């Protein structure tokens, strides 16, 4: 039996009048990789943003239902969104490094937590860069603009930046979709290593990727969670017809 990190119960989300998530219930295991797959516009990103309450930043969003992380409803009035997001790292589809140096990007999360100790900052920078397998490539240019890095390096730096605040959960929204195959492979390798320490949720529309990196896979369609199971099961022996059509590419 697995330890459950996140459990979502009957969750609905509306953008204004439009319902984007319909009655989602799911339990995401700790220290495993869970992949969300499904056609574009089916609500994967929206659901990912539910998990760290990034949707709070969008006007006109209405929600219903509960999201429990370690048994605590993160939509409870007692919960602080800012503190919540400090515990949950997020990596976005397109690298969104700040126009600052590599180093400043890495320590941003620490700085806003009030950590000023140069030694701690330096150590964290080195540690997370090593974790993200980027140290060897950038150790001699930490104070150069982050945007001078290549696309793949930028995305790995984004991951490193998210890890620097030592989150427990890392959410990734199509982190490799804009990258070449080589960089993609590096990111997948990285994800594989990170899961020993973190609970990882990754959105991808690349089914091979989901099959390669994830332990659990959830298939979304038109705002609904159609099927959720072990990745091997989803890809070899899905229960639902829609899932089968999608994973075999017979969709639409």
């Amino acid at each position: 039996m697995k330890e459950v990190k996140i459990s979502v119960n009957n969750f609905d989300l509306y953008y204004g009048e439009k319902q984007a998530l319909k009655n989602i219930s799911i339990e995401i295991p700790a220290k495993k990789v869970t992949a969300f797959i499904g056609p574009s516009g089916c609500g994967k990103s929206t659901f990912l943003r539910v998990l760290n309450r990034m949707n709070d930043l969008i006007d006109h969003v209405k929600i219903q239902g509960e999201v429990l992380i370690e048994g605590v409803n993160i939509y409870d009035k007692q919960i602080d969104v800012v503190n919540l997001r400090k515990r949950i790292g997020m990596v976005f589809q397109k690298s969104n490094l700040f126009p600052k140096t590599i180093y400043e990007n890495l320590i941003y999360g620490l700085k806003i937590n009030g950590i000023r100790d140069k030694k701690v900052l330096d150590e964290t920078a080195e540690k997370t860069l090593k974790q993200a397998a980027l140290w060897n490539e950038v150790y001699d240019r930490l104070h150069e603009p982050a945007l001078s890095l290549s696309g793949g390096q930028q995305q790995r730096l984004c991951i490193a930046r998210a890890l620097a605040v030592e989150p427990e959960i890392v959410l990734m929204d199509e982190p490799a979709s804009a990258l070449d195959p080589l960089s993609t492979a590096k990111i997948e390798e990285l994800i594989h290593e990170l899961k020993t320490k973190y609970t990882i949720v990754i959105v991808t529309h690349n089914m091979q990727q989901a099959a390669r990196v994830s332990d659990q896979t959830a298939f979304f369609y038109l705002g609904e969670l159609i099927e959720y199971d072990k990745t091997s099961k989803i890809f070899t022996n899905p229960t639902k017809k829609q899932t089968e059509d999608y994973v075999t590419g017979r969709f639409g």
Partner: protein
Amino acid sequence: MEQLKQKHKDVQGIIFINLIRLLFLVLVIILLLLLGKIVVEGSGILSLEFVFDSPRNNMTKGGIGPAIFGTIAVTFIMILFAVPLGVFSAIYLNEYAKDTFFTRVIRTSINNLAGVPSIVFGLFGLGFFILFIGRNIDDVLETGLLFGQPALLWASATLAVLVLPIVIVSTLEALNSVPKTHRDASYGLGATKWQTIKHVVLPQARPGILTGTILAISRGAGETAPILFLGAAFFLPNLPVVDLCIGDYCIPMINPTEQFMYLAYHIFILATQSSNPTKTLPIQYGSTLVLIALTFLLNITAILFRYRFRKILGRL
């Protein structure tokens, strides 16, 4: 294949495109001629004395020092009013306020306020600042007629209201141009709203905000209509300065309750109302050259800033 070799002649096109070229050329020539005229006529009188001296001999001799001082003093106080208020309210509008019908109405009003004639702001300044606020201050403080009359303070305040939309609109634009993805990155790392604004949004928006501020200064320094009846004076023997003393230490300060000379107003008054406009013509050209140089300098700075700003953003 013969047809292809034959060059197609679009006679109408040739005429019109060259007409467009011609019109543009005419425009450029006229502008250069006028600018040249100002430079040639104005540079004859231009000297350090001209820039720093007071007018003499019934304005026919001497310089425009007090008018330049007045322009700097008024725009300085204007900036003190308009820039913090404009920048802060733009930050509120863009970063804190929700996008509702109400905020959209406000945005539209601000946009349109930038197009309201400047003379109308002058009316507002007279009626509101001088006759309403000023007179009431006088009544309360029992100072006699001190604030309830045209003065530097009210001219600055009125110009501040005039340039407020410029500051707000350019700040909004600057804030808006900071990519949403950067905000998301910051919030995703657990930053608060203010931390995000301070560390991510403002550093990127700063050149844009600065551009707007410089444009506002240039606009204020060049305006004449609104200050016509707000304290601009034909000639003042003394600068609007007062010694502010704390104990034995005195520093000269701009005196906001006095009238002032103003470069743009100086040109107007010399050209239209002095007893002998032809005799003061060199001074008129000299003042015009100084005013144009001042506004060009400010605007070029603003344009360069924006150029840099766009280049930075373009790289992202």
